[in-house]
């Protein structure tokens, strides 16, 4: 597919020339929550995702972080085709998914797989593990039963299970093992991208490391790209190469993971970092809480969405109080929504030192 012309446009926050498998440009997902049954009346929209652009580089991990309701899971659902887009495009290998031929769409769906958060509800309790892992192969390929059985065996071995366990039912496994089954199912069609929706947050602490290490190993072996949706910043720092911080459906800070953690610029990112739990009792971070609570994403104001949460003073006549501010590259590979009230500095006191 490398010969196809790359039709992906540039966007703030996206480095040009990146070898991206999956790209998202100006993605919007609005839910109409206002008008009545007959479509009469004023339309109000819940803007779950509002103008989001990013690239997922081949063989790398891109992380989406934010609080519940920030739109990170909606973004993932739209990418997987579980939700329609309201506006914007998804590009797979440089090709717009919306205008793809049927064969192209099938290839896209084969190559973009998912692992879900809850290993208890994401596996069908009535199917044997062999059928769960083999189902994608039955649907998307024309392999024989024997070939599928063999492939399932290899897949189970690859995720650290035994091939004979293909005959068992999901309830016979522990949480960590179930999540391995979920990973095996995602791997079945040799995808290029796997979307991970909070893959470890439902697991026990001692099991989390096993799954994270497994994911990292599989990425190296197969050159997989991951989209990781998580709320735990430490997990994101461990797993991701690039990341974006979302608030109210809008990316607030984006770029190279290490650059962001070494010098978080946006006040919201600093607030998340300050609220994150320390890894040692002697680490005492300055801690601040943002005033108020997360605002409703229904009919957000036209200006900066962070305006209502910033602890700094907002000039209501400022351009960015009435118009959506763009991401600005403040240093190489580090993009931030730059308004007079969104940047944490030493003087303002909202800068969190991680060390």
């Amino acid at each position, binding site marked *: 597919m490398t010969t196809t012309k790359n039709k992906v446009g540039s966007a703030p926050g996206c480095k040009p020339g990146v070898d991206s498998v999956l790209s998202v440009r100006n993605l919007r997902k609005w839910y109409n929550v206002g008008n009545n049954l007959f479509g009469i009346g004023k339309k109000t929209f819940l803007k779950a995702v509002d103008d989001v652009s990013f690239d997922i580089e081949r063989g790398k991990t891109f992380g989406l972080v934010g609080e519940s309701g920030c739109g990170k899971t909606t973004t993932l659902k739209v990418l997987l085709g579980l939700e329609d887009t309201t506006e914007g495009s998804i590009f797979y290998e440089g090709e717009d998914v919306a205008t793809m031929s049927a064969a192209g769409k099938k290839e896209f769906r084969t190559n973009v797989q998912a692992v879900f958060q809850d290993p208890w509800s994401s596996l069908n309790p009535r199917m044997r593990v062999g059928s769960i892992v083999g189902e994608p192969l039955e649907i998307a390929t024309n392999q024989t039963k024997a070939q599928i059985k063999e492939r399932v065996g290899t897949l189970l071995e690859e995720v650290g299970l035994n091939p004979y366990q293909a005959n068992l039912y999901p309830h016979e496994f522990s949480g960590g093992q179930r999540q391995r089954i979920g990973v095996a199912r995602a791997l079945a069609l040799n995808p290029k991208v796997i979307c991970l929706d909070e893959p470890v947050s439902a697991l026990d*602490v*001692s099991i989390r*490391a096993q799954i994270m*290490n497994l994911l990292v190993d599989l990425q190296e072996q197969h050159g997989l790209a991951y989209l990781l949706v998580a709320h735990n910043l430490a997990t994101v720092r461990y797993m991701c190469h690039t990341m974006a911080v979302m608030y109210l459906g809008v990316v607030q800070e984006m770029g190279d993971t290490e650059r962001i953690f070494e010098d978080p610029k946006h006040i919201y990112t600093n607030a998340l970092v300050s*609220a994150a739990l320390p890894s040692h009792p002697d680490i005492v971070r300055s801690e*601040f*809480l943002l005033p108020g609570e997360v605002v409703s994403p229904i009919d957000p104001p036209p200006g900066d969405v962070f305006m209502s949460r910033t602890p700094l003073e907002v000039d209501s006549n400022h351009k960015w109080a009435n118009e959506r501010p763009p991401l600005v590259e403040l240093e190489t590979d580090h993009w931030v929504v730059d308004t007079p009230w969104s940047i944490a500095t030493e003087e303002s006191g909202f800068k969190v030192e991680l060390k």
Partner: protein
Amino acid sequence: MAKATKITDTEKEELLSESLDVDTDGFGKSAATSETVLDLRNLQTQFTTKWGTVKAVNGVSYNVKRGETLGVVGESGSGKSVTALSIMRLIPSPPGEITGGEVILNGRDLLKLSEREMTSVRGGEISMILQDPMQALNPVFTIENQVGEAIRIHQGLKGTSLFQRVVDSLKKVRIPAPDSRAKDYPHQLSGGMRQRVVGAIGISSEPSVIIADEPTTSLDVTIQAAYLRLLRQIQQEEGVGIVFITHDFGIVAKMCDRVAVMYAGRIVELADVRTIFNSPLHEYTKALINSVPKLEEKTGRLAQIEGQPPLLHNLPPGDSFAPRSPLKYDEKDASIDPELVEVESGHWVQLSRSSVADFDKYKHLVNY
């Protein structure tokens, strides 16, 4: 009740005001004292199942002092929640049964009380904050009704004085506009606010001990931080002892004075929080701490604990962690039932050759 820390009215005003500005870690100093309020001695709880007897709590001893937070850490199934339910005497029987030990709260053994006496202790001297605020509150009753219930039962208040106490409790957990909020139903509050209401019920009758069973797992990070800070502030004001059940070492690092690490129904290590982080002795404790990625620096490959936690029915005697231990050991050593020994002042370890690398250093403390 003795206040652990005195704070002035103006300071209280500041704390109560909603404008939470910059605060250099609002956690303050530990409020721990040396007065023991809750003392567990060799507590044993078991369940009879069709697969055999499950010794969910197998001889657990710990104590909590006034104003102290004891963290109880372990995987699911390690017995940390069953221990808490045993303290409250809320184990469903059958199949469960508390088969031995003592639970001494303010000098009284709770296991010897009648059911009637226990009812006045529950929610009175000792209360519990549960994990899921959605399920802990009844959707068809107002906040006033639910917070008031505990106060009505334990203090016999009625009418305006009852309402006043409800508002006071809501104020203590920093709920804005408590007078009008008291009239709301649970669905009208956000998740963080609901968890505060659960907290208000917990502290409404001025208990000496609060058992918090993973109260923040269903909350967002920022709301979690606010809630943890609140718990700490309440503790400093009221001098209450907290048993904090969690599996998150971050919460332990932030909140706890001492830590008990549980595995397969037993305590494998118990020490103050700095000892646990700086010089853990049991391999399980070490592995738990090293398996968590750090936020403060780029973490290299994570240490992982191989295998799965053991099944608890008909657990053979001996060191239950041995099959997952990275140490080299003899089958014979692993089959010896290990003892929990105080290796240094305040630092208790379940000593076994299979799970403690420094076993030889402390060999003289045990006779195996």
